[in-house]
């Protein structure tokens, strides 16, 4: 009987904790990993590898990756790119949280998730020359060097047939900021 209770209790704990099976620092996964992808410890990452708070993701030449965060933000990382997840806090119940991602070099395309939907100010993408804030949108960041980054708004556009709010990007160089409201338009941020 005691064994049965223990068995049932273990089952219950396991079942109840299914949704919370990830450690506190777990923030997402490499949802697609093509080629050579490593983290800051030089550990090889592949499709399904977990991403933790503070991780640096390095995507080598002729490689690409998609990172899926817990709030459903998706980052598609091109070859020769490096980014760090500087901050990630997310409450799946209220869908409130904060993301700070630091793109050091390379090309990253971002589809915003729940955190940005709840409060656009809570998604910040840092680049060496400034930062990008996004509302309900998809955008790409190309960081060529410490001196120059290009930010492109990809969508959705004003004429989308899905009733979605058109995307808006706020690009800042630390002194000034500009809004991009038309898909296909870009802003170049210099140091």
């Amino acid at each position, binding site marked *: 009987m005691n064994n049965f209770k223990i068995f049932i209790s273990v089952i219950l704990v396991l079942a109840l904790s299914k949704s919370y099976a990830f450690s506190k620092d777990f923030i997402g996964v490499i*949802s697609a990993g093509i080629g050579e992808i490593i983290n800051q410890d030089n550990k090889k990452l592949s*499709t399904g590898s977990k991403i933790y708070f503070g991780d640096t993701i390095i995507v080598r030449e002729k490689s690409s990756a998609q990172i899926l965060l817990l709030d*459903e933000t998706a980052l*598609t990382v091109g070859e020769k790119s490096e980014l760090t997840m500087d901050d990630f806090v997310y409450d799946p119940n209220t869908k409130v949280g904060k993301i700070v991602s630091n793109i050091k070099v390379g090309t990253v395309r971002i589809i915003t998730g729940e955190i940005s939907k709840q409060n656009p100010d809570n998604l910040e993408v840092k680049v060496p020359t400034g930062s990008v804030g996004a509302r309900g949108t*998809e955008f790409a960041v190309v960081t060529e060097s410490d001196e120059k980054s290009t930010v492109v708004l990809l969508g959705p556009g004003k004429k*989308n047939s899905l009733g979605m709010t058109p995307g808006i990007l706020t690009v800042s160089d630390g002194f*000034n900021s500009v809004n991009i409201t038309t898909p296909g338009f870009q802003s170049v941020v210099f140091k």
Partner: protein
Amino acid sequence: MSQNFKKLIVFLSLSIFCIKPSIAEVTFLDILENPSDLEMNLTYAKEQESLGRYKATLSTLERLTMLYPVNTDLKLYLISILLKLDSEAKLQLMLETMLQDPNTTDETRQYIEKILTKIREQSETKDKGKWFAFADLSYMQTDHSNIDGVSKSGKLYSLDIIDDFDGMKYDKAYSRGASITVGKNLDQTSAFSLNTGFNINTQNKNTKRKLEGENDLVFGSLTYSKIFNKHYFMPYLFYSRPNQRHSLTADSNTKGVGFNNTYSLDNSTDITYGSSFSSTIFNMTGSNEEDKVDEGNNLTYSSNVGFNYTFSDINLISTKFSITKKDAENEYNGYLGRGLNVGYTRILPFGNLKIEKTYQRNIFDEKNTFIHSTIDREDDIETTQIQLSGRIIQLIPFMKKIDPEGLFFYNLKYNESDSESTLLQNSAIRETTSFNIIKRFSLYE
């Protein structure tokens, strides 16, 4: 108790395992655990689409196309979502990538070609016939160090005799203006715009009479622009009519035509060239009827050729050579001028800084015997200009709260002109410092 407890525990356990599948077939947590499972992810994408969560559909399909690059059905599904999202730039990029992919079948290629053609047609019609309009209100204040152009020596020639040059040196001038611009994008490569407005130009009231430089200026221009391959063409017509306030100064009007074209050699190098012709005619309305005001009438021809080079994306070096021929009714007012301008522009966080130097040599057609009967007039003018322009929010970030679109513009300009002339009265140093602020109102776009 123990039997009931067992039943309760077993029931709860089963419930916990069963509840989730009944809410949705595939959850986001399932995707996190199985991001590469084609069937599960495709089901998830479709479910999310039916729930109106298109971004989840988009990221899922993008992932699947990365993991299964030869699966054309996935790509076509992704294309259909991008079409609905109006993500034209991304769609075009993806379609063109698919066209280059050897795995794309002929049937799919034909389908893609059709979509690309449709996008291009839509894009052409989107910009075609699109009107735009905006209005500008401007205010400018200029400090003059030598508004009357008093000569360096303080002397002038008059009928061969050296006399004192009495004139005002320091003064302030003010200009308030309004203009409206209406235009239309004819297609993706061409547009025209019509600009018309007025300026009220006054000087400091340190004299009771109206000053010679004061006027109400009405102006207008019609501009057409066209991009053709590497060429940018911009022909224009212009008109201006100052209504002079000074009682002895006759009014005039100037009409002109010209073009400013640019040819791009590559991404960083441009050749610019332009030409203009203008005609200025004075009205016989000067109060001083003894003055033959039509003697001021002139025709002016001007041409220039220049070279621009951009480096590090934020620096521009430019140089321009110009030649001007002014044919005046009175030939002593006519001249042939040659000029060389070199400039450097840099984009700064708070605006665009431009530093220019211009050397101009004007050789006048005839002696003005009212001034001097034997000296031909030749002027060598060296001009230095430093200019900072941009949006007010670049200077004062908190202005963004009242000007979120950045439609307040500023321009700070310092100009020094040092003229050496064979005639005493035309050797002068003039300095001006001006501040200009413009508020733009977008009326239609």
